[in-house]
């Protein structure tokens, strides 16, 4: 019931930050992940980070999205 995507925290400023989701920069509130640092992964829902994500696993998921656009034989994932 909740669209959420994992991304990497690129910058932090006050209560907010920018999260990179496969090349898309999203403005995100960090109220619920107060200890998050740049470079960590978070799950983004409705403009907020709802939890931090285990990095190895998150990057695996993001790689699936990345692979969706490799070269001329790019894929659309499962869409």
């Amino acid at each position, binding site marked *: 019931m909740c669209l959420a995507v994992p991304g990497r925290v690129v910058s932090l400023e006050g209560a907010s930050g920018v999260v990179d989701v496969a090349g898309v*920069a999203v*403005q995100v509130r960090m109220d619920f992940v107060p200890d998050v640092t740049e470079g960590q992964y978070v799950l983004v829902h409705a403009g907020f980070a709802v939890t931090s994500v285990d990095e190895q696993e998150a990057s695996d998921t993001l790689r699936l999205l990345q692979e969706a*656009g490799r070269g001329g034989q790019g894929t*659309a*994932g499962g869409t």
Partner: protein
Amino acid sequence: MNEIITLAHGSGGETTHRLLSEEIAVLYASEAQWDDAAVLAAHERIAVTTDSFVVSPLEFPGGDIGKLAATGTINDLVVRGARPAYMTVGLIIEEGLPLSVLRTVLRSLRSTCDEAGAAVVAGDTKVVERGSGDGLFINTTGIGVISAAEPPGAGRVAPQDQVIVSGYLGDHGVAILAAREDLPLQTPIESDCAPLHDLAHCMLQAGGEGVHAMRDPTRGGLAAVLNEIAEYAGVGMNVDAQAIPVRPQVMATSEILGLDPLHLANEGKLVAFCSSQSAPKVLQAARRHPLGRHSTIIGEVTPGPETRVTVRTSLGTTRVLSMPAGELLPRIC
């Protein structure tokens, strides 16, 4: 003072005349006839298309409404195998539009037409009150010349035809979405807005009669095109999800907003339905062209009477790709 368009510009008098001769004139070639109607040489067979452009914002990464108006019209002609020849341009300007924006847009429109060899031969300009339009609406009619005996068309699509797309899908849709003020996301994605007369020509040269139909997947995206063709031609289609090229940022934006990238608009892409014999040649020709480098075969046409479009997922299962329904609403929950 930064000049803006006012209602006076649309009233038909001196101010209108000045607007036409000083600004709108940039659309027209020097031999333009300043009469109520343009008289053109007759041709064997002509293709005619009409389109309206209401995009907001007027300027976006990769283009503006002028470039969009020209490419949209040109591409509609081009997919029917027509050589773009003439265009009309109707402008509905909201008072308050900065003249500088109008100038930029008109120049884009003109230069895109020049690129495709199309001449603007007639037009109209109106100004409406503030609040009655989104800055600028453009309506066009495009006229092209058909030389082939049997131009490509949906009715020629047949089972076993291969479905080719000319590159990455969804770029224009995402560029527009990201340019909206109210969404907190940014991407480097630009609109793919481009006139495809030359790409289409190369593909038609390579495939000849084997190119059964072509479409440009604008509003409604690939999903709309495949479903429309399937229904019109009374055939089904099966495509491979993993073969469809979509950039990671487009996938990510779609995931974030809950959209289907196959529903997103494209303004510089072709979908071609080619006989299985001609498909490899058409594909090769497309890939050699700068606008078709990432062309790929994504699936094939299946026999009717079922006119369903199905997708083989990355899991090897099958799901339906249906006609997009209603307005694109970024969903969250």
